[in-house]
């Protein structure tokens, strides 16, 4: 017996690599869902550590709402070119064109809820049996109860009452045809852990994570980036602000925070002293107390 223990970042990293390798070992057609956000960027970095010098045993999959921050797409394409792995893109626009979903109307219209349908279509089209995602248990109450291997039925639905017991670090990925598993290798990481890891590993990020000047409007008490995708009316006042983003999603639902954090050290200090949770800046979570649980049951990540 020894008092020596792994440093927390080493322990979290080792666990995530272990989970990624379990996916590779247990599934025939896995995929890594890549949003361009820091959590999925971290996943890609962990996959490099899990499988290099070999290739990834899965493609990256991006569900593209078409309402992206330009910086995210630039980052995505540069990264894919750098690591030389396969990227599959599922377009929400295609789902709209096929008439499977109808674009929301009104001031708070967002394509965010539509992407679940595109995700499920993409999974079905490519017959993915496991999808790796960057969700973390510290983000939200419903996520705090989700397994690391989370089985979804044919409709992508999560049934919180029928979750499999998950013991030790033995992950049961056996499924029936048509079902798939969502896998969350960084379940046990907190927002701050991700940032500290990004700093330690020198992982490049899209520029919108750092403070910059941007035209913003204030909606429901939150700062939103002014963009052609946001339905604006005469009441909306556009102001230049110094902002950054804590999460990267669709432009219509991701709020900015005012910030002068230009470097990663500034960001870590800012988060460490922040009193608002990361998902507090997501309008999609504000709808009701059970918003996330309901969306997960519907197939959302």
């Amino acid at each position: 017996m020894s008092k020596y223990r792994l440093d927390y970042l080493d322990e979290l990293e080792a666990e995530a690599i272990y989970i990624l390798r379990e996916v590779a070992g247990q599934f025939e057609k896995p995929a890594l869902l890549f949003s361009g956000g820091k959590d999925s960027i971290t996943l890609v970095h962990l996959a490099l550590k899990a499988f290099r010098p070999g290739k990834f045993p899965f493609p990256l999959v991006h569900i593209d709402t078409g309402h992206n921050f330009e910086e995210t797409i630039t980052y995505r394409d540069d990264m894919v070119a750098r690591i030389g792995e396969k990227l599959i893109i599922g377009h929400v626009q295609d789902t709209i064109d096929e008439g499977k979903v109808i674009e929301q109307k009104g001031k708070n219209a967002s394509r965010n809820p539509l992407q679940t349908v595109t995700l499920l279509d993409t999974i079905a089209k490519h017959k993915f049996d496991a999808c790796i995602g960057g969700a973390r248990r510290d983000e939200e109450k419903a996520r705090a109860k989700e397994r690391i291997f989370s089985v979804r039925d044919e409709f992508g639905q999560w049934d919180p009452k029928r979750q499999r017991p998950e013991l030790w670090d033995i992950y049961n990925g056996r499924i029936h045809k048509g079902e798939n598993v969502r896998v969350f290798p960084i379940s046990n990481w907190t927002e701050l852990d991700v940032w500290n890891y990004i700093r330690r590993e020198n992982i490049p990020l899209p520029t919108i994570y750092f403070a910059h000047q941007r035209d913003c409007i204030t909606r429901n008490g939150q700062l939103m980036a002014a963009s052609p995708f946001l339905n604006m009316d005469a009441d909306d006042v556009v102001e230049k602000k110094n902002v950054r983003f804590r999460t990267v999603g669709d432009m219509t639902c991701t709020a900015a925070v005012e910030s002068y954090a230009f470097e990663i050290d500034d960001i870590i200090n800012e988060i460490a002293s922040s009193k608002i949770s990361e998902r507090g800046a997501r309008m999609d979570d504000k709808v009701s107390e059970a918003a996330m649980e309901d969306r997960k049951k519907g197939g959302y990540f």
Partner: protein
Amino acid sequence: MDILKFITAGSVDDGKSTLIGRLLYDSEAILLDQLEALHASNRKNDDGSIDLAILTDGLKAEREQGITIDVAYKYFETDKRKFIIADAPGHIQYTRNMVTGASNAALAIILIDARKGVVEQTTRHSFLVSLLQIPQVVVAVNKMDMVDYSEDVFKQIIADFKKLAAKVNLDNVTYIPVSALKGDNIVYPSSKMSWYLGDSLLQHLENVELTIDDSSAHARLPVQWVVRPQTDALHDYRGYAGRVSSGSFKVNDKVTVLPSGFSSTISKIEVYDKQPEEALAGMSVTVHLKDNIDISRGDIIVNSAGQPQLSNVIEADLCWMDTRPLDTSLTYLVQHNTKTIRCKIQEIIYKVNINTLEKDFDEEFKLNDIGRIVIKTAEPLAFDPYQVNKANGGAIIIDSRTNVTVGALMLRQSVE
């Protein structure tokens, strides 16, 4: 800084959710928007103060019923340590959830209501903590405010618990008198119990010593994946990727691959772009061997000088986790490390009434039942007794019809 994973065993009635809420609240791990939601909620304590228990209720059904159904994980940190709380329900119908939460915990907090003392569920929780071999135990005697912060009450509960601990083989027990509702001895030392000289609960969690088994005799590396780039530049590259589950490996160690029994020597250890001399328990590594032998997922690499048992008829403790009872005529699957093979439960030796610790010879093994069985596997498993080496002694049973995890196995010994 390291991470401590702990589980809280108790029920809503013991103030378990309030205790966790208090721990999070007083250590300032609750963010403003979550606090707003807390204050906005309609649920309040009788005296109108906010109900901290809400912080741990995740699912709609749980909020409606006011109880914890599933294991919820909560995260917080102090300057000294990072903590992961597995918040598991305490009622007997959720025994499987507690077993699940306990499987990964390095410490267990057993909650006792000071007014009630050691009761039936205390026996049950202590038995499970012992069965799952959680190395550190804290007995938190809660609701001390309801017994006038009486030292005598506390001492009597310690005396009673010690008898129980001896019965279920629990050691490393620390006793702390607390009031989660009022905040006594949770984060801050209590001013109401000057007779108590020990640490507050949080101080104890911060300072308790955690160890890993780094002996080479217990070196185990279940192979998850074989890295074979098969490019021109790396034509002969063949790395065995996995996470060291216990013990430690060094370059030049003589190792044996099980179940095949072939031996070789470690030529290189890799962690991405680094080549450490040693791979310790918990590390995810890629190992290279001097000899080219056939190794695939499901095999386990061990130190040749300290080999596990290799057997296909094994006595084990079993916790049944499915609503359909165990069927001894049915073929199930067993997943041990990275290996999944067919098995049968050949014999039920006995069950344990976990409220009274009495043996029960009832034939049917139902949801939440725990007992001793003999399992027969299609191929030999390379295992260590769970009591000696948890990491290589736990396994799960899967129902191949539903693919659901239906049992937790703590392997004990070969019976051949």
